[in-house]
């Protein structure tokens, strides 16, 4: 059944032969051309290649090896591969899709259709699922308040009321399975993937240019003909338009115009991330995604939809690299697909989704399995009339505590299933009892300590004043529980240069008191009472202090600073106050003063590309690691705001931040007048962020596999407990799983992530996220449910961790290798036999190469003297704690055309691929990667646009100095602002706006972000990389 998903392909295959033929014809020339083409790339690519080369022979040589003609053949076969099932089925398959495609233009029906797809993929369960749904509907009627609409699961009226679309979908869902519509997602993807393949094949065989393009663009859909269309239908009709250019180009190109003189591979013909994103948006955007099925693949991170928790954690909390685990470790080894979950336990949910329920069992505390200590969750199976339950994780049979007893209904489910979040939801919270508290004492509300570097530079630059002024207003916005009037968080203030100054801001004082601690060798907290205060109570004293700090040090000439003692002091303060908390450290220089943690400038470009390069990413002195450990042990999270204008050794100073779940912000060459808005907005956001303090996370799994590796802004004392001094909404932990044993396909792979933390109001809580994945002994199932974005997240984090111990070269090789391996394995096991030289990408990993290439080009993995060491360390650290959405944007920036804005609609324009070819002289583009946002202006950008945005008459008048855009009352400006706002929302860092004018010096920087192109630092272009990977695969297969 599951394979049927692929069957959809056949129609394609029929269209393809032509292409195959084409390419075949061009085979020989291609190889030679290859050389020519890759001459350049080769050299640029050479850096990564040596490592790879074992398997991947340089293109030139490989080309002949992989005989072009077969390649072309493959092309045709590719289609078959995707649909491994026999051609005979095709017609049947076919029938399914077409109808929708025809009716396609109407949106709603499609949305429903995407849903049915899931039951299909989990074919075995489709029947049961139907039953489930029916059940759930029945149960609805059991629900206490008979909901007006019986279809609503009234057990959780609140949760369900929000998304009212829900009932209809459910209804719909029951229908499609019956109709046995082919699984859309996979097939579609498969089809999509195939378009991308031909170019590759063509590349092998056909170096020819893309003359067909113009033609094809005119008549995009035509060449593939009927075979093609149905596929699109699956995507949803909306896609059709946007897709036209893309698929059209591909089939047409090779098929019709095999120009031997073609020099470059048409970028349009290779898998486009934009296309994938847009397709997913089109098919699933704006809909309700209910997590009611084990192992269903969620929409992409880039897709906006409403997520409804129906028993599995929302993908906002957990995203997995694959939603179907291979059932045995052999399989897993074979596929080499990392089995990982990216957990963002405090991810923000949009207001239209239900916030987490809090379960309070009073003094008894959460109900847990006696053996494995897993928390009560939907995976627990109640038996013996409800008197006992069997743990889904370890299969231990536990007694149900009397207070928790409830009868079971006729299908063996508890009558109160929908009344209890812990029985029906994937994510919920428990109120923890004293057993879960430090020293068995109820925690105190956390505290924020602001620690400001008041050395000469910061005073002189006005930064100190800026911070102080901002704090005056910010302190009113400390996070608080919704039901509370004011924040329970206490605040404290420290300034420092070579010594530390603590401030007593007790409300009873007329003026603040300053206490200098100059014993930095053995730092301590000089006061307890009056240091951490409630801002509302001590307002006047605090304001007084903030007024005075800039003046107090106005004539300072102290230029040396300390750093480690500052953290130590903050940590000691929290320890003394017996609470968890966050330090906000505003620091600007290398700590060279005589004190623990003193650093020297060790930035040495000579180390680049040597075995010692890794030391640049390691802390300079050991004390920081010990400090980090202490901080974590005391629930002290360190947020670091760096304002360097030279080397500050981010790898060392940022270490504690990283281990304590803090956030590192870096503002190079900070100038108050220019860059303050970024910083202030970061600061504001950070202060307002919802955060869990003094957190400890435990990931439990069902038998057969376990979590083995953790990546993130975390600290691990042992192999299982993930300690986080604090964890905020943007922090994600990537967890890798390994097999212990065989997995049972029926029971699947269950994961429970429990985070014990202290809330902002000082309540000890447990946040539980549960997710169930499928297991399969079919590799195809695994490949089908892969999530490229999560994969890249995993690869990025593991690679960035690996560079601490391995030379960059090796790390890059491993990445390329693994990419090739995964694809080769697919090729070998899931695709029907075909010629070796054919590049076949699994549908779900279609964009893996381009993303992987972006990762390889990331400045962290590229050693070039032009890239500051600090910047690399900084980015390394950022990525380590990023969630999937952030890494996606970070590695593949969003490029938005502005010249063709639809000023009337609210929507953000569709992105284009990150390549210079997409730019046009007459246009303006916005490029955002999560840290920066570039506004690129073509030399002949429309004057009205320029006028509208900058209020200057012409291109020449635009100043690239500006770091913000003027607020103008015109549609252009407003539209752009709203777009910026939209991009910025949900992003942890405030993006720095950089205005780039075409053909000016600053364009160099901008170009680095056109990640599909060859990078000035030597990174391969997308096309080149694809070829490289292909060679690698060929090598593996041969």
């Amino acid at each position, binding site marked *: 059944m599951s394979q049927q998903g692929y069957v959809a392909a056949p129609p394609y295959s029929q269209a393809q032969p032509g292409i195959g033929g084409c390419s075949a014809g061009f085979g020989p020339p291609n190889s030679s051309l290859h050389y020519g083409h890759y001459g350049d790339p080769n050299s640029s690519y050479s850096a990564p290649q040596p490592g790879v080369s074992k398997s991947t022979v340089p293109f030139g040589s490989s080309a002949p090896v992989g005989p072009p003609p077969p390649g072309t053949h493959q092309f045709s076969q590719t289609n078959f591969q995707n649909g491994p099932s026999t051609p005979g089925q095709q017609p049947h398959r076919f029938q399914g899709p077409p109808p929708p495609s025809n009716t396609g233009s109407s949106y709603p029906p499609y949305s429903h259709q995407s849903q049915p797809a899931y039951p299909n993929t989990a074919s075995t369960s489709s029947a049961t699922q139907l039953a489930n749904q029916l059940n759930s509907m029945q149960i609805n009627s059991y629900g206490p308040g008979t909901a007006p609409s019986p279809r609503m699961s009234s057990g959780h009226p609140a949760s369900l009321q929000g998304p009212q679309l829900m009932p209809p979908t459910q209804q719909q869902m029951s229908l499609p399975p019956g109709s046995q519509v082919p699984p859309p997602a996979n097939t579609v993807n498969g089809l999509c993937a195939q378009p991308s393949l031909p170019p590759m094949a063509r590349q092998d065989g056909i170096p020819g240019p893309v003359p067909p393009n113009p033609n094809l663009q005119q008549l995009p859909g035509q060449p593939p003909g009927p075979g093609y269309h149905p596929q699109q239908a699956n995507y949803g009709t909306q896609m059709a338009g946007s897709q036209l250019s893309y698929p059209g180009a591909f089939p047409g190109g090779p098929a019709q115009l095999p120009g031997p003189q073609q020099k470059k591979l048409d970028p349009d013909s290779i898998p486009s991330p934009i296309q994938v994103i847009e397709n997913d948006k089109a098919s699933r955007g704006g809909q309700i995604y209910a997590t009611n099925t084990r192992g269903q693949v969620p929409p992409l991170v880039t897709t906006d939809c409403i997520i409804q928790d129906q028993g599995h954690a929302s993908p906002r909390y957990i995203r997995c690299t694959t939603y179907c685990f291979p059932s045995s470790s052999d399989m897993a080894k074979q596929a080499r697909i990392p089995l990982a979950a990216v957990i963002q336990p405090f991810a923000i949910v949009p207001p239209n989704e239900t916030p987490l329920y809090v379960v309070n069992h009073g003094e008894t505390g959460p109900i847990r399995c006696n053996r494995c200590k897993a928390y009560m969750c939907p995976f627990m199976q109640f038996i013996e009339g409800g008197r006992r339950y069997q743990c889904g994780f370890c299969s231990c049979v536990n007694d149900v505590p009397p207070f928790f007893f409830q009868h079971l209904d006729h299908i063996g489910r508890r009558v109160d299933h929908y009344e209890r979040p812990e029985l029906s939801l994937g994510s919920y919270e428990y109120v923890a009892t004293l057993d879960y508290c430090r020293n068995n004492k109820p925690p105190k509300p956390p505290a924020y300590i602001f620690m400001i570097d008041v050395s000469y530079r910061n005073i002189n630059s006005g930064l100190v004043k800026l911070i102080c002024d901002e704090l005056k207003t910010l302190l009113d916005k400390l996070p608080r529980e919704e039901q509370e009037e004011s924040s329970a968080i206490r605040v404290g203030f420290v300034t420092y240069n070579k010594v530390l*100054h603590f401030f007593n801001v007790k409300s009873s004082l007329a*003026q603040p008191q*300053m206490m*200098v601690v100059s014993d930095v060798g053995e730092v*301590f907290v000089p*006061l307890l009472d*009056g240091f951490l205060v409630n801002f509302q109570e001590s307002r006047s004293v605090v304001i007084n202090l903030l007024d005075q700090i800039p*003046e107090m040090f106005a004539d300072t000439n102290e230029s040396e600073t300390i750093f480690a003692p500052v953290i130590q002091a903050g940590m000691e303060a929290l320890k003394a106050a017996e609470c968890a908390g966050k330090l906000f450290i505003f620091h600007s220089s290398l700590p060279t003063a005589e004190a623990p943690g003193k650093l020297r400038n060790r930035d040495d470009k000579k180390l680049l590309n040597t075995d010692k390069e890794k030391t640049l990413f390691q802390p300079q002195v050991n004390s920081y690691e010990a400090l980090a450990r202490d901080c974590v042990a005391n629930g002290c999270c360190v947020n670091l705001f760096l304002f360097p204008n030279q080397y500050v050794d981010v790898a060392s100073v940022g270490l504690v931040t990283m281990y304590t779940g803090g956030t590192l912000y870096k503002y190079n060459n900070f100038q108050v007048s220019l860059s303050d808005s970024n910083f202030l907005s970061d600061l504001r956001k950070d202060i307002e962020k919802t955060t869990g303090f003094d957190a400890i996370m435990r990931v439990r799994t069902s038998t057969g596999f376990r979590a083995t590796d953790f990546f993130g802004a975390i600290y691990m004392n042992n192999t299982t407990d993930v300690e986080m001094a604090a964890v905020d909404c943007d922090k994600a932990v990537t967890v890798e799983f390994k097999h212990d044993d065989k997995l049972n396909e029926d029971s699947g792979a269950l994961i429970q992530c429990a985070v014990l933390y202290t809330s902002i109001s000082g309540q000890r809580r447990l946040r539980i996220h549960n997710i169930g994945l499928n297991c399969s002994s079919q590799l195809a199932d695994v490949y089908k449910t892969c999530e490229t974005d999560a994969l890249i997240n995993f690869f990025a984090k593991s690679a960035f961790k690996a560079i601490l111990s391995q030379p960059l070269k090796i790390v890059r090789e491993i990445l390329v290798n693994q990419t090739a391996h995964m694809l080769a394995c697919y090729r070998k096991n899931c695709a029907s036999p075909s010629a070796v030289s054919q590049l076949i990408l699994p549908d779900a990993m279609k964009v893996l190469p381009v993303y992987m290439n972006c990762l390889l080009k990331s400045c962290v993995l590229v050693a070039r003297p032009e890239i500051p060491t600090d910047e690399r360390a900084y980015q390394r650290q950022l990525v380590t704690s990023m969630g999937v959405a952030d890494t996606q944007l970070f590695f593949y920036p969003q490029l938005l055309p502005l010249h063709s804005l639809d000023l009337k609609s609210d929507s953000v324009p569709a992105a284009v691929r990150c390549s210079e070819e997409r730019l046009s002289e007459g246009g303006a583009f916005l490029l955002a990667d999560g840290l920066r946002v570039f506004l690129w202006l073509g030399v002949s950008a429309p004057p009205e646009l320029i006028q509208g945005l900058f209020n200057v008459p012409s291109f020449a008048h635009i100043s690239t100095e500006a770091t913000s855009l003027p607020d103008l009352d015109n549609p252009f400006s407003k539209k752009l602002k709203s777009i910026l706002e939209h991009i910025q929302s949900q992003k942890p860092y405030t993006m720095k706006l950089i205005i780039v004018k075409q053909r000016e010096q600053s364009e160099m920087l901008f170009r680095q972000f056109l990640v599909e192109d060859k990078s000035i630092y030597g990174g391969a272009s997308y096309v080149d990389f694809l070829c490289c990977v292909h060679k690698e695969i060929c090598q593996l297969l041969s």
Partner: protein
Amino acid sequence: MATYLEFIQQNEERDGVRFSWNVWPSSRLEATRMVVPLACLLTPLKERLDLPPVQYEPVLCSRPTCKAVLNPLCQVDYRAKLWACNFCFQRNQFPPAYAGISEVNQPAELMPQFSTVEYIVQRGPQTPLIFLYVVDTCLEEEDLQALKESLQMSLSLLPADALVGLITFGRMVQVHELSCEGISKSYVFRGTKDLTAKQIQDMLGLSRPAVPTQQGRPLQTSEQPVISSRFLQPVHKIDMNLTDLLGELQRDPWPVTQGKRPLRSTGVALSIAVGLLEGTFPNTGARIMLFTGGPPTQGPGMVVGDELKTPIRSWHDIEKDNARFMKKATKHYETLANRTAANGHCIDIYACALDQTGLLEMKCCANLTGGHMVMGDSFNTSLFKQTFQRVFNKGFNGEFRMAFGANLDVKTSRELKIAGAIGPCISLNAKGPCVSENELGIGGTSQWKICSLDPSTTLAIYFEVVNQHNAPIPQGGRGAVQFVTQYQHSSTQKRIRVTTIARNWADAQTQLQHIEAAFDQEAAAVLMARLGVYRAESEEGPDVLRWLDRQLIRLCQKFGQYTKDDPNSFRLSESFSLYPQFMFHLRRSPFLQVFNNSPDESSYYRHHFARQDLTQSLIMIQPILYAYSFHGPPEPVLLDSSSILPDRILLMDTFFQIVIYLGETIAQWQKAGYQDMPEYENFKHLLQAPLDDAQEILQTRFPMPRYIHTEHGGSQARFLLSKVNPSQTHNNLYAWGQESGAPILTDDVSLQVFMDHLKKLAVSSAS
């Protein structure tokens, strides 16, 4: 010179010196047979209304080892303009300024009546006085408030140009910066970590700006005083600031859990205070004034742990060697005290708490530096408040009664050597020909440093006659001693006071009666007592008592008149008659008896005993008792239980306490309210009289005594009962068969028994 008594008094008046012997035995052997050593009580800065200081430098003997000051005893050749040193016989030229000298035109220092001269010399820069308050904040709210008020008040009493600084401590030690506006700033130190002076100065940013750290900081390089001025500021400048700062002082904010003492870092606080001054103002007059309300409980110098269940060490613990922290703490404070003394600063300790505060360990801080030690129950008592106020009292000439950094140099003629000194001083280790090998007190030197002294500060200085028996002293020869005290006057002037005295020699074998008659039994009692107390510091109490007894018996044997083995025949001449009684009371005094006293109290009493002048010391040894009754004017009565009569009011002054005791009848009358009836106005006056007298004592005494007003049967009456000679006890009450007096419930021997034993032992031929 009618009597020796007058002579003694006159000498004391003029020179502030009292010798145990005013005629000296002329040989070493004889001198040792005198039992009471040749010694004197010297009050270097005794107030002299009639002594205007001279405004020039003293003339010194040119011999480098002598350097005695020209004095009335020197032989002067007016024609040759030469003078002969009376100590080393070196002939010296007068300096050019003395060119006009002649028999009729003598400089003051040559006139006989100016055996004591004070010189004002212009030397070195004048630095203002420094007062560094070191304040414990682990106090009860009420106490702290009172202390704060006292401190605020004291600011107005300081010399306007004096520098003042503030250190507070509790769990941490805070050094307050005084020059800042708008925000009070302090440097905080961990209370558990001892720091060297260098570290302290580095951390306070006081180290002289080193060359490498200078770039780009023009402000701090300017002047050394500017830097330290952050912590030490002229009173007149930061008066208001400091008043506010003191006003805002909070109790130590660190939580003290039940069953714990607050963590008090006295040791580190003192160390920082010492280090601060050491680096910035060495060898200038400075007082570190420590105000503490409890024992140090952490860090170096801790005296007791913070667990309340372990009480602070008692004499019992010390005897059993059970005082865990004592040795270490004592060592810490000794080190500090020596450093402080080396810098010429002094440490005052104002300890007010109901329990002990560790004075035992800290005593050396005050003892070695000449600082004050004040012990009270609470800062919120007039005892503390007035005592503290009195530190800043001014003398008759409007000058503060304090002087600093004194250097006492003693010179003797050849027949004498210096054995040592006992008092608030440290040795300067000045060896010389006149230093004896036999040490009494702080010996081995002819110079001592007294970091702080006031007009009543008195040192006991012990000599040794070294003249050999067979080397006769020329007829009419006189032994001479010169005391040269250089000090910093409270007006910051440098002054030198020179006292030269001479006494006749007498051959003890032939002229014993002269020597006997010239015995100053009061001075001798005090001098012996000081020796005894000094020994008691390092020896077991019983040993000291035994030693004192033996000395007394030997003295009686030497100077008593008796027939052997007949106690009844024993007589002592008038000049010795009171001495045994002094010894009796000394034996009972808290200076030698630790029973019923805590180690702190003993240290406190001994501290004062070692520095007060003769009169006060005598009061301490043998309290004074006055009786007020209708039978006549107030009269001094015997310090005896027989003096306690129902119709008497008694006023006892023990130096540390003033006790007013109403006899039984008087108390009843008072209860009945007769004093309020107009017809019994005389009773009212009777009641008032001792109060007025007590007030008079209270006004002048430093430290302010504990004032006790009690009556017959009152619990506080124990202060009186424990002091009087227990002539009537429960044992012999009926044997005496008298109704007068009150029986004392004690097993102590009475003076009568003591005397009987003494006589018996003195006349015994066995010993």
